[in-house]
C-alpha cells in the first residue's frame, strides 16, 4: 500500500542550522493498517507525514503508493491519493468560505477544476447527511462561514473533508492536540468511526500514549529520524505504557523526551 524506502531529509543543509529530520527512514504499510506514531520532540514524525504529502521534496529515497512512485510528484498531484488533517484547526479549511463550499472543494479532491458550478444542488443533500453524521448540528449551518466554527467543529469538518471520497491514505498529525480533552475525545471517536467504516489506511501521530495504544492495529515509535519500535496485532494489544517506555529506551538508548507527551 504505502512504502517508504530509505527516505532522508535534512533542513538547511550546510548551514549552522542544519537539521537531519529523517535519516534513512523505512516503513511498509499494508492496506487497512491503522498505525499510531509516537516519538520525542523533533523525532521527525511531522516531517515523515509532510514528506509523504509532498509538502517539500525529500533528499533521498522513494515513497511508493500502490506501486506508484510518487516521490517526484508535487503536493497537489498527490492529493488525489491522500487525505490530511493538521494539528492546527485553521489549516484544513478555508475560513472565509461556507461549510458547503469547503465540502464541495473536498468532494473534488484530485480533480482539475473546471468551469462547472463549484457546488451542485444535488450535492447539498449528500453534504447535509454527512454533516448530520458528525452530530454537531452543522447540517443546519451549511451556509455559515467556516471561520465561525469552534476548533473542534473545524477539525471534525476537516476530517470529513479528508475522508469523504475515501483516500488511499489518511494522514493525521496530532489532529486533536489543539482541542480541549472532551472535544478531542469526540473527534478521536469520530476518527475511529470513519476509519473503520471506510477501512482507511491511516497514519496517526499522537502525543498521547494512551491513544496510541487504544487506537490502531499497529504502533511505531520514532527517534532521530527513524522508526525504532514497530509493534502490531496481538503484541500491540497487550502493551502497557510502561512497556512502551521500556521498549523505546531499549531501542533508542535514551528515555523518551517529549515535553508534551501524555502518559495516561
Amino acid at each position, binding site marked *: 500500500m504505502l512504502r517508504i524506502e530509505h527516505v532522508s531529509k535534512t533542513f538547511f543543509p550546510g548551514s549552522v542550522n542544519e537539521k537531519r529530520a529523517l535519516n534513512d527512514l523505512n516503513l511498509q504499510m499494508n492496506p487497512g493498517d491503522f498505525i499510531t506514531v509516537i516519538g520525542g520532540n523533533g523525532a521527525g514524525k511531522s516531517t515523515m507525514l509532510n514528506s509523504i*504529502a509532498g509538502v517539500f521534496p525529500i533528499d533521498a529515497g522513494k515513497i511508493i503508493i500502490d506501486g506508484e512512485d510518487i516521490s517526484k510528484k*508535487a*503536493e*497537489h*498531484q498527490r*492529493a*488525489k491519493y*491522500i487525505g*490530511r488533517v*493538521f494539528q492546527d484547526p*485553521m*489549516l*484544513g*479549511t*478555508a*475560513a*472565509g*468560505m461556507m461549510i458547503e*463550499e469547503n465540502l*464541495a*472543494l*473536498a468532494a*473534488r*479532491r*484530485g*480533480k482539475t*477544476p*473546471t*468551469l*462547472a*458550478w*463549484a*457546488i451542485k444542488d444535488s450535492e447539498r443533500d449528500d453534504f447535509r447527511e454527512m454533516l448530520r453524521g458528525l452530530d454537531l448540528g452543522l447540517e443546519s449551518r451549511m451556509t455559515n462561514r467556516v471561520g465561525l466554527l469552534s476548533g473542534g467543529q473545524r477539525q471534525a469538518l476537516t476530517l470529513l473533508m*479528508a475522508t469523504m471520497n475515501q483516500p488511499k491514505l489518511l494522514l493525521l498529525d496530532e489532529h486533536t492536540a489543539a482541542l480541549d480533552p472532551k472535544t478531542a475525545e469526540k473527534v478521536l471517536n469520530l476518527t475511529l468511526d470513519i476509519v473503520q467504516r471506510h477501512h482507511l489506511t491511516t497514519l496517526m501521530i499522537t502525543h498521547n500514549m494512551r491513544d496510541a495504544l487504544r487506537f490502531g492495529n499497529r504502533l511505531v515509535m520514532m527517534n532521530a529520524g527513524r522508526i525504532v519500535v514497530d509493534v502490531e496485532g496481538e503484541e500491540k494489544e497487550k502493551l502497557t505504557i510502561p512497556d512502551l517506555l521500556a521498549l523505546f529506551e531499549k531501542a533508542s538508548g535514551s528515555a523518551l523526551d517529549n515535553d508534551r507527551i501524555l502518559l495516561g
Partner: protein
Amino acid sequence: MFDLLLPTVSQGLLWSMLALGVFLTFRVLDIADLTVEGSFPLGAAVAAACLVKGGNPFTAIVLAAIAGGLAGVITGLLHTKLKIPALLAGILTMIALYSVNLRVMGKANLSLLRVDTVFTYLRNMGLDNNMSIFTVGIISTVLFVLAIYWFFGTEIGAAIRATGFNPQMIRAQGVDTNHTIIFGLLLSNALVAISGAFIGQSNGFADVGMGVGTIVIGLASVIIGEVLFGTRSFKNSLISVVLGSVVYRIVIAVVLQMGMPPNDLKLFTAVLVALALALPLFQNKINKRKVAE
C-alpha cells in the same frame, strides 16, 4: 452641485473596474499587487494606440484587456515560479510597463481628441456626453459584476478564492496554487486595463503617468465600499466595491468643490486609505476600552 452628480457617478463606474481588479488581488487572493499602476496606463495606451490606428473601440478594449491580462501573468510567473515576493514582483512588472507603455504609444501622451472613441459612438447615436459616459459605465459595470459573480461560482473560481484564504488547504485538495494565483492576477489586471482603456477614452488622452496612485484609488474604493455597504457574501462584496468606487469619486468631487487644491488629491487619498486600513486597530482599541470599563 447636482449637475455634477451624473458625471461623478459615471466616473465612479468607469473606475469601478479598477476597484474590482484590486478587490480580486487584495481581498480574494490576499496579495497587494502593484502591477495595477502599470496595467492601468497599459490599458489606456493599448486602446489609444489601437483607436489612433483606426481600430474600433470594441477591439481597442479587448486588446487592452489582453495586454493587462498578460501583465498580470508576468507578475504571477515572477511570484510563483521565481519565488519573488508578490509586492516586489508587482513593482518589477509596473516599472517594466512604464517602458512598454512608452513604446506602445510612441510618446508620453497620446491624444484621442480627433479619433472616434466608444463615447463618440454613443454621442453619434444621440446621447449627450454625460449620458454616453454614464451608459458605458453602467453597462460595463453590470456586465463585469455579473461575469465575475458567475466565474467565482465555478470550480476554478472557488479554487482561486480558497487559494486566497488558505493555500495549504486547497493544495491538499489537489489544486496547483501557482495556477490559481497566476489566473487571479490575469483576471485582475485585465479588469484594471479595461478601466484604464475607458478612462483614457473619457479623458480624451492616454498618458504614461496616469497610473500613479491607481493602487491607492483601488484600495480606497474597496475599503470605503466594504465599510459602508458590507461584505456579507461574495455578491455583496462585489456590489460594495462598485459603490465604493462611486462614493470615492463623490468624496473627491466634494472636497474639490470645498476648495482643496487638486494637487493635494493623492495626499488626501493616501491618508484616507491609511486611516481606513488602520480602522480595525482603532475598533479593537475602542472595544478593549469598552470591555475594561
